[in-house]
């Protein structure tokens, strides 16, 4: 909040912190030559300077990470051997290796500093950074340093390691698919060499008797392509046939087997040279397409679940003392202690007198809930204020919040990565090809049995849907990258295909339609005179409480006077005096002395011992959301809210008329609501944020999570979009929908090539040379077309985004 004030009062002179580069005109700390925004930054600067690490500031601009607004966490649990053992990758003798996820890694300076971290702690032997995954791998000597001191050092220099429950509860998966790279290598190797060996024959050199040895070498080179590189296609085709589907892998497998079978037959019987180069090339192109399609955003996690938000350990009361224990060992009726700012890992009842819980993690609402002794506390809340003790009622994996994840939807494996559209097309494709093959065979069978055999295999060879199979990877794969550059992160290409069919858009209210970061104050009661406004403004400007800030904005036209007396009772209210005037502002219990249950969101104003009125608060509507929604009015729009109906009137003004509203929805209601829509035959896109939408996001056909700065919730979603680019939402959707026509174009091109090939095949004229030219040409055409068209279509989106930037209405 202080930060906001500083920004507001920022003038022409800007002072920049030497460490983090943030403006620090007001709070600057000056020494000899340097200016810092806070002591944290100053400390880091001198720590680095004393250790000859000043290069940090030279490598990249904006290298420093501000220490402001970042609370240092307590890492005492890292003394516990059991927890250490779970965190370390390996540990033998005094050598240990650990990997940290450091979300603050953002520039080349970070890499440099983190890889030189051994200068700050001699116990560290080696450290290596993976920039895209935002990870640091650190090897250290357990006798000279400890895991805890490394973590504290990282925290000290501004890189807060992400240590959460999922780190020990789930195996760490490597993101890079090494086996795919190896398969591509093998296929490429075989393709190149077979091509080289077959080349003389294409040029028509005379065939010596020994040239058949070349065929054997080719066959030998092609074996690993069939049994290693391309084997997964055969497997998947077999699986498809077993369940009675004609997915794209079926014609692919038919093509592969015919190519290989006929070539082997020709070579072994010494009647021809076979089509092995086409075969290897076919597999190579398919794998390249797969690799291109599988591109993942390494720093974005789409599969986070509650485990990523929970701490690793918690303090538990054991035999008269508090011990750090891993949270999966917590059982019902244990007593745990939660400090300021820590997430409560399990449901329980409060033992301490009072607690203030921030459930924004769960509900997306910034309202702070007051809990008194023996009342229920739910997992996922964050304690604000002094340490509290809780008696656990349910262990972590059975808590109200985590039960969401035990719903069936989270257990369903995402249907195979292969594409929906392609599988539909390929069913028709396969049937057509088989019919053509049968007719060709029957026709030639009565004329010449040899030609019949040759032509049926030729038909199956040219029918290889190589170009077809590459269309989706290249068009949609490239679109995923283009969208990622424009801050619309899609999990995979299947998600894009699902977006094509969306006809129902479901919005969550809090955090989606409304902006949960901002707060707006509404005043109800007797009108205030300008003098009273002055008093009010002067009072609230002393306080940093979010509600005070909101009232501050409400009264901002008044001028400030100096109060004679000011007092803030934390969490309750404010008292001020000016001359004979008394002003009091605060919760109902603070003003009226009642201690009933109340909503903290109501603030009473009392001037000279008379209640003047009250303030209520709501989150303002997200900017431009009305424009976004009105463009969607051709579709079904639904709004789900965990709140009551009090805001319906306000929402109706902005949302299109055909919107349907559902209020008082708890997380599992939301999920069921989506299910009901889907049962009615709708394809649902859910747009939401916060953990309470997780179930609905997962259940929907496409779940979009809005991630505002600073909160990186991405539970069970398919797309992550940043709040700042949400006003371009329609642009993104239109771009994705336009890709449908790009795909149709690709199908037409692919079929053209297949038709040309069929012309050769049915007449029995398909020579290995024709196949070797036709197949790579068609694949490359599709690749170029795919990359080009997806780029071309994005121009419109690009200019739209630029327009929105230039014209902030």
């Amino acid at each position, binding site marked *: 909040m202080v930060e906001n004030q500083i920004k507001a009062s920022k003038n022409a002179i800007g002072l920049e912190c030497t460490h983090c580069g943030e403006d620090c005109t007001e709070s600057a700390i000056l020494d000899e030559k340097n200016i810092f925004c806070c002591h944290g930054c100053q400390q880091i600067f001198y720590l680095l300077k004393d250790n*000859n690490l000043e*290069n940090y500031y030279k*490598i990249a601009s904006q290298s420093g990470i501000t220490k402001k607004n970042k609370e240092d966490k307590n890492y005492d649990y890292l003394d516990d051997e059991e927890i250490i053992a779970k965190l370390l990758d390996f540990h033998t003798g005094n050598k240990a290796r650990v990997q940290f996820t450091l979300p603050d890694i953002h520039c*080349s300076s970070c*890499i*440099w500093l983190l*890889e*030189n971290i*051994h*200068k700050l702690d001699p116990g560290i*032997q*080696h450290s290596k*950074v*993976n*920039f*895209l*995954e935002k990870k640091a791998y650190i090897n250290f000597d357990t006798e000279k340093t400890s895991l805890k001191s490394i973590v504290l050092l990282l925290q000290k220099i501004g890189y807060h390691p992400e240590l959460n429950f999922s780190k020990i509860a789930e195996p760490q998966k*490597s993101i*890079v698919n*090494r086996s795919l*790279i*190896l398969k591509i*290598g*093998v296929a490429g*190797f075989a393709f*190149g*060499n077979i091509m*080289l*060996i077959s080349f*003389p024959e294409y040029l028509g050199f005379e065939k*010596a008797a*020994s*040239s058949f*040895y*070349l065929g054997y*070498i080719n066959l030998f080179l092609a074996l690993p392509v069939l049994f290693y590189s391309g084997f997964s296609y055969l497997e998947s085709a077999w699986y498809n046939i077993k369940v009675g589907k004609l997915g794209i892998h079926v014609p692919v497998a038919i093509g592969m087997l015919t190519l290989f079978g006929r070539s082997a037959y020709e070579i072994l019987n010494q009647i021809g040279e076979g089509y092995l180069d086409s075969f290897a090339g076919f597999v190579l192109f398919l794998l390249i397409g797969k690799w291109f399609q599988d591109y993942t955003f390494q720093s974005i996690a789409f599969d986070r679940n509650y485990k990523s938000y929970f701490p690793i350990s918690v303090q538990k009361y054991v035999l008269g003392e508090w011990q750090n224990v891993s949270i999966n060992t917590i059982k019902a009726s244990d007593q745990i202690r939660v400090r300021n700012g820590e997430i409560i890992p399990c449901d329980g009842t409060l033992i301490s007198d009072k607690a203030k819980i921030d459930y924004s993690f769960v509900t997306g609402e910034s309202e702070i809930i007051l809990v008194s002794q023996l009342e229920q506390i739910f997992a996922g809340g964050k304690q604000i204020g002094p340490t509290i003790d809780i008696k656990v009622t349910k262990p972590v994996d059975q808590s109200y919040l985590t039960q969401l994840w035990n719903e069936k939807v989270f257990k369903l494996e995402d249907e195979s990565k292969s594409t929906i559209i392609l599988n539909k097309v390929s069913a028709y494709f396969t049937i057509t090809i088989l019919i053509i093959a049968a007719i060709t065979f029957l026709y030639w069978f009565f004329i010449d049995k040899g030609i019949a055999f040759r032509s049926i295999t030729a038909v199956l060879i040219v029918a290889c849907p190589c170009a077809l199979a590459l269309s989706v990877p290249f068009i949609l794969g490239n679109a995923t990258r283009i969208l990622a550059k424009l801050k619309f992160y899609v999990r995979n290409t299947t998600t894009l295909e699902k977006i094509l069919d969306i006809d129902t858009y479901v919005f969550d209210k809090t955090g989606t339609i409304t902006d949960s970061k901002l707060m707006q104050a509404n005043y109800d009661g007797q009108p205030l005179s300008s003098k009273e406004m002055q008093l009010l403004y002067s009072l609230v400007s002393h306080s940093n409480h979010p509600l005070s800030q909101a009232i501050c904005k409400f009264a901002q036209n008044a001028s400030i006077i100096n109060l004679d007396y000011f007092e803030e009772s934390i969490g309750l209210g404010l008292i001020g005096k000016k001359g004979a005037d008394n002003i009091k502002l605060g919760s109902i219990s603070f003003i009226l002395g009642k201690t009933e249950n109340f909503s903290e969101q109501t603030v009473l104003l009392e001037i000279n011992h008379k209640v003047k009125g009250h303030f209520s608060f709501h989150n303002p509507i997200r900017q431009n959301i009305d424009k976004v929604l009105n463009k969607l009015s051709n579709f079904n729009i639904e709004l789900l809210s965990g709140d009551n109906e009090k805001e319906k009137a306000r929402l109706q003004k902005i949302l299109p008329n055909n919107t349907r509203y559902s209020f008082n929805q708890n997380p599992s209601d939301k999920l069921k609501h989506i299910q009901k829509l889907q049962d009615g035959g709708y394809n649902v896109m859910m747009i939401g944020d916060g953990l309470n939408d997780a179930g609905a996001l997962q259940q929907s056909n496409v779940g979009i999570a809005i991630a505002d700065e600073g909160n990186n919730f991405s539970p069970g979603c398919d797309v992550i979009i940043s709040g700042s680019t949400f006003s371009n939402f329609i642009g993104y959707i239109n771009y994705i929908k336009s890709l449908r026509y790009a795909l149709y174009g690709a199908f037409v091109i692919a079929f053209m090539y297949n038709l040309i090939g069929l012309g050769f095949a049915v007449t029995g004229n398909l020579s290995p040379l024709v196949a070797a030219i036709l197949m790579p040409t068609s694949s490359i055409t599709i690749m170029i077309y795919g990359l080009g068209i997806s780029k071309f279509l994005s121009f419109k989106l690009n200019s739209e985004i630029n327009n929105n930037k230039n014209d902030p209405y």
Partner: protein
Amino acid sequence: MKIILLLLVVSLILAIGFLIAFFWAVKSGQYDDDYTPSIRMLFEDETTTKSNK
């Protein structure tokens, strides 16, 4: 023709050698991160301190 066969065999052995090298490179993790090394190589070497690697 025989000489061509010999040449082919030699070239294949060489190519297989490269394939093995490629396997080793992938398995040792060189393809896991294709971005950081491109930055790392631009850092100035320091003369004052000795580093492990």
